[in-house]
């Protein structure tokens, strides 16, 4: 319909080169700018400063008797603190770590053998495994049992059976005194 203008030949070869250069330069700079402008939108969905600041939880462990577990909240997730019995420590240490799905020595998962501290989120699809309360099923390896899809964790929180791919993760923590642990 209006093609006589659309198809008008550029006045010279030089003009064509100049036009191509401008076209590619403008498009390139424009694309870069659009890409950079998207970052603030994406980054706004990352954890905010106040969320990141709430990254430590203090736990008083003086009241946890041997054999008992407590669950505390850290970054909105349950953290298991278990005061392990000597026999639980022994079975955890004896497991031949090379045969495990996610091979790890018990010694690499603890700071003090009687205290096992784990993020209580199943590595399969994020349910909270059972085993914190005395009446809970603890699975075939005496640790934790995830009721959602049947993953069994041992007394070191390592995956032994079921669909989960990884051991229960160990959060960063330190003993700030003999009776308190700071998680995070």
């Amino acid at each position, binding site marked *: *319909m*209006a*093609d*006589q*203008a*659309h198809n*008008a030949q*550029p*006045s010279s070869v030089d*003009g064509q080169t*100049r*036009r191509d250069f*401008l*076209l590619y*330069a*403008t498009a390139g*700079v*424009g694309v870069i*700018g659009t890409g*950079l402008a998207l970052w*603030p*939108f994406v*980054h*706004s*969905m*990352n954890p*905010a*400063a*106040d*969320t990141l*600041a*709430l990254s430590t939880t203090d736990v008083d462990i003086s*009241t946890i008797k041997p054999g008992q577990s407590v669950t505390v909240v850290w970054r909105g997730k349950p953290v298991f603190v278990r005061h392990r019995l000597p026999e639980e420590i022994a079975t955890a240490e004896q497991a031949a770590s090379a045969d495990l799905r996610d091979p790890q020595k018990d010694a690499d998962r603890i700071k003090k053998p009687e205290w096992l501290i784990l993020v209580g989120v199943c590595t399969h699809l994020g349910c909270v495994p059972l085993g914190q309360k005395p009446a809970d099923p603890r699975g075939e390896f005496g640790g934790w049992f995830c009721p959602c899809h049947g993953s069994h964790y041992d007394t070191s929180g390592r995956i032994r059976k079921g669909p989960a791919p990884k051991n229960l993760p160990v959060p960063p923590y330190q003993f700030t005194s003999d009776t308190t642990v700071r998680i995070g």
Partner: protein
Amino acid sequence: MSDFKSNNKVVNWIEERLPVFSMMQHSAIEYPTPRNLNYWWNFGSLAAVMLIIMILTGLFLAMNYSSHTSLAFDSVERIMRDVNYGWLLRYLHANGASMFFILVYIHIFRGLYYGSYKAPREILWFIGIAIYLAMMATGFMGYVLPWGQMSFWGATVITNLFSAFPVVGDFIVTLLWGGFSVDNPTLNRFFALHFLLPFIIVGLVVLHVWALHTVKSNNPLGIDMKGPQDSIPFHPYYTIKDLFGIGLFLMFYLAFVFWAPNFFGEPDNYIPANPMVTPPHIVPEWYYLPFYAILRAFTFDLPLLPAKLQGVLAMFSAILILFALPWLDTSKVRSAKFRPLYRQFFWLFLANALVLGYVGGKPAEGFLVTLGQMCTAYYFAHFLIILPILGKIEKAKPLPASISQPVVKAAALIAMIMVGLAGFGGEAQANSGEGPALKKPATAFSWEGVFGQYDKAALKRGWQVFHDVCSNCHAMKLVAYRNLADIGFTADEIKAFAAEKEVPAEPNDEGVVVNRPARASDRIVAPFANDKAAQAANGGALPPDLSLMAKARVAGPYYVYSLMLGYEDAAPEGHPIPEGKFFNHYFPGNAISMPAPIMDDIVSYTDGTKATKEQVATDIVTFLNWAAEPELDARKSMGVKVMVFLGVLTALMFALKRQIWKDLH
């Protein structure tokens, strides 16, 4: 359309099933556009870009906003302070609303000037008015969401408009509120509607463009395209011209976002909503001001028509009359270029609308009331008397036989926009400037100017003043101890500041709540447990929270600086002040409950600076401004980079545009 062919098999496969490619080819590439459109025709596409920016920023803001009255204000401040780039998203959105209206007003007045509402473009014009109405509703409800004082009282006043209608008025108002006043149900539904309406606008825009592509664009000459020689394909001629316009516009828009983000806002909206206290001077956002003036212009009761109802009807009519415009304007000639009389009246109408806007932003007092009434009368006379008569008596200049060349050049456009902005700026600032001229420090505050950044040493000294003096009575609940890292304190220093105060811990195993020392992640602990305790300890006056003080007053930093130094030992003659109050030149009403808070050597600065009271005032104002605008340093340095980038991009687009258009000129 049907002749679309591609060499790409996938494209052809899709095309046969859903003809999206031929549709794009037809309506975005080949669309025959008059070859003589001037830069005033850029504003439609600019408004579309602005709508997209508003929806995008709004979507990401909504991810962090809480629409509950007890959380809304603080959640907005959390967006400003803690959410990554939250300040950028919010300032883009808040200033974007004003930009959207600027663009749309220019777009509307372009339509008025060039007669774009006349046959066959009536339905195109109707859809445009519907978009404008939807924008007004969206803008109003969006302004309510931050739940500041202006939000609350704006919502109260605007919803009360509907109470003017006889019989059903009160029913409608209660229905809007979901209660007996503007409250939590109102906020919730406004949020839901504010989220919905932009998508309705998108739908209307699709209809608007559809109608446009059916009847084709008007043009500065207002005559129809008579053949291929009058038109050019939309792409590449108008795509590059629109993109160049977007580059210019973005620089204008972002200048506000990065350097004057609260220019269009009201300081009162940084005070949390308080249903018990109306601010002394409430105004709607600037884009409603002309209609607000019309609302207030009616002061005499008539039989069956009380003044209140007249005002409300007039206000709605002022917009709805635009629907009748295609028939009220009886002239067959579209463009004002060929209508010597209409052209005069067009500018008179524009000036009248600006005066109405000015009047709407001022208190309804004295001569302004009369002026508002005269302008209101003229507004309606323009549509109901002048336009119908003009079409009959005006002798139009001869129309050219066909479309020729573009008329208005970029330079002229920019000059006109600048003049318009000066007007808007004047209006936005119209309600400041009461009380004595404010004091200014001997040297400007470090953060002023295009490149100004906070003076870290002054911030640390200011914190010391706040910590030793102000914080004995004033809270600062939006700032956390961890934020002090921004002004150069170390983690250990911050822990020590926090540990001076206690906060309630989680209930222990016996269910007892005991106190624990505050941590870096806690907000600055208030000196009193609650407002009542604060009032009781301060002779009945509540010391305001200082988190946003520097933004919550007109010319905030200068106001606080002046207030600090504005005390008199004894009230001057003729200014009696009540027992227990103190005289301050700058406090509204002069009688302030706070005794002079600072004096020479009230603190002894750890960095050895001499603590004269001017120095102390400068330092505390610097600190308070940081507390209110902690993002300022990041904002300005990002602004400089963005502007340099946009400058390069826009220059490239301009060069490309000239190259593309070269063969046409």
